[in-house]
């Protein structure tokens, strides 16, 4: 049985912890809103560039190094994680998804975004070619850096394909590590997630059929492709960064909500024990006094 003093210290320290977790929960909650807005703001661009790529691949005839896979050598895995922990199994889940993928491909090499991911991947047998912290610079510039490095490795033939493993932000409650092929670029007919924005969402579907092949290209198909593909790669990475960050905040929000609740439960339990202990000692003292008084009387 712990003494009253020990219990009091314990409760005090738990209250401090709870204050910290509650603050982190509130910060994550506020930042998740901003991250979601940023994600939504990127959707019109996604719709537009997806439609253009679909138009180009429908026109056919042009090739570009970023569209073709060179001789199979090794596979690059671009893994996106957070810089900080205290967000549940968020980082571990991503690293696990990444290394599970790495075991299925030939000669995997990692490109890692996020400090936590780098630390964890170092413990796996796979080499890390390059890594970036998630919060070093604005995402637009970070995406540009990553795209340059990754496409450089691809074009020089060091890797014959690049897979992206990042967190898909399904909702505040669900974030799913999701692999997708980054390079060679595989045009998709209509990009997912572009549907909600009223602005430029319908151009892909609205212009179906007869017009598909009547597009004119300036300067020509190859020229447009050469301008579009690097942008497309950059933007895909940019979007994945946004989504990974939103997922991180969501995971932290949940983890910290749980931690705050658990601390509250512990505090309640310990306070009860503490009160009982105090009451027990008071009762004991009263009994002693009464006993002593009785003895004196007798």
């Amino acid at each position, binding site marked *: 049985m712990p003494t009253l003093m020990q219990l009091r210290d314990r409760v005090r320290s738990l209250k401090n912890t709870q204050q910290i977790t509650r603050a982190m929960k509130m910060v994550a909650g506020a930042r998740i809103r901003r991250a979601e807005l*940023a994600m939504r703001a*990127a959707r019109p661009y996604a719709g537009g560039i997806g439609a253009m790529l679909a*138009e180009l691949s429908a026109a056919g005839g042009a090739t570009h190094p970023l569209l073709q896979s060179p001789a199979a050598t090794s596979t690059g895995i671009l893994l996106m994680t957070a810089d900080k922990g205290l967000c549940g199994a968020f980082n571990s889940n991503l690293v696990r998804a990444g290394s599970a993928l790495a075991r299925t491909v030939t000669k995997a090499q990692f490109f890692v975004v996020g400090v936590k991911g780098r630390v964890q991947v170092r413990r796996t047998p796979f080499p890390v070619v390059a890594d970036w912290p998630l919060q070093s610079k604005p995402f637009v510039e970070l995406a540009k850096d990553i795209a340059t490095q990754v496409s450089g490795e691809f074009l020089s033939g060091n890797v014959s394909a690049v897979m992206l493993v990042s967190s898909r932000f399904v909702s505040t409650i669900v974030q799913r590590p999701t692999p997708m092929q980054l390079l060679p670029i595989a045009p998709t007919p209509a990009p997912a997630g572009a549907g909600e924005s009223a*602005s430029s969402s319908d151009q892909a579907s609205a212009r179906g059929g007869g017009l598909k092949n009547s597009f004119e*290209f*300036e*300067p020509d198909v190859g020229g*447009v492709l050469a*301008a579009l593909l690097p942008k497309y790669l950059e933007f895909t990475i940019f979007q994945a960064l946004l989504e990974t960050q939103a997922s991180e905040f969501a995971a932290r929000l949940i983890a910290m909500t749980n931690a705050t609740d658990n601390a509250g439960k512990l505090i309640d339990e310990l306070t009860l024990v503490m009160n009982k202990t105090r009451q027990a000692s008071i009762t004991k003292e009263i009994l002693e006094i009464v006993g002593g008084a009785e003895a004196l009387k007798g």
Partner: protein
Amino acid sequence: MAALTHLSIITPGSVKFEGSAEIVVAPGAAGDLGALANHAPLLTTLRTGVVRATVADGTTRRIEYAVDGGLMQVLPDKVIILTDLALARGEVDVEEARRDLKRSEEALAHKRGGDDDAERKAVAWAQARLDVAQRPGV
């Protein structure tokens, strides 16, 4: 009134402009080009420069954006411009643009060879920003 086309100017971070326009003039790969409603489908790269449009959302007015390259898709009923950066008149930092222009022009004048392409692009981008910021009474 002439038929209208729908113009969207979109950057990765936001939709800079969205609305009906009578005409859109953009710095296309093969020279400046204007797009009215019912233009033939076209996909072109953009040079760094200024996109001008006469928009008609209630009142007719002219808008200008400095764009740093990008892509433009023209369809009969809409024009979509995707670019990394698009700045309207009020968003240009004139001092910064002037400084950039001066520095890049000097760099071009002094060292031949080197990274001339990047400097030339920087000159064009600074020039485009100044064009948008300083054109009197649009």
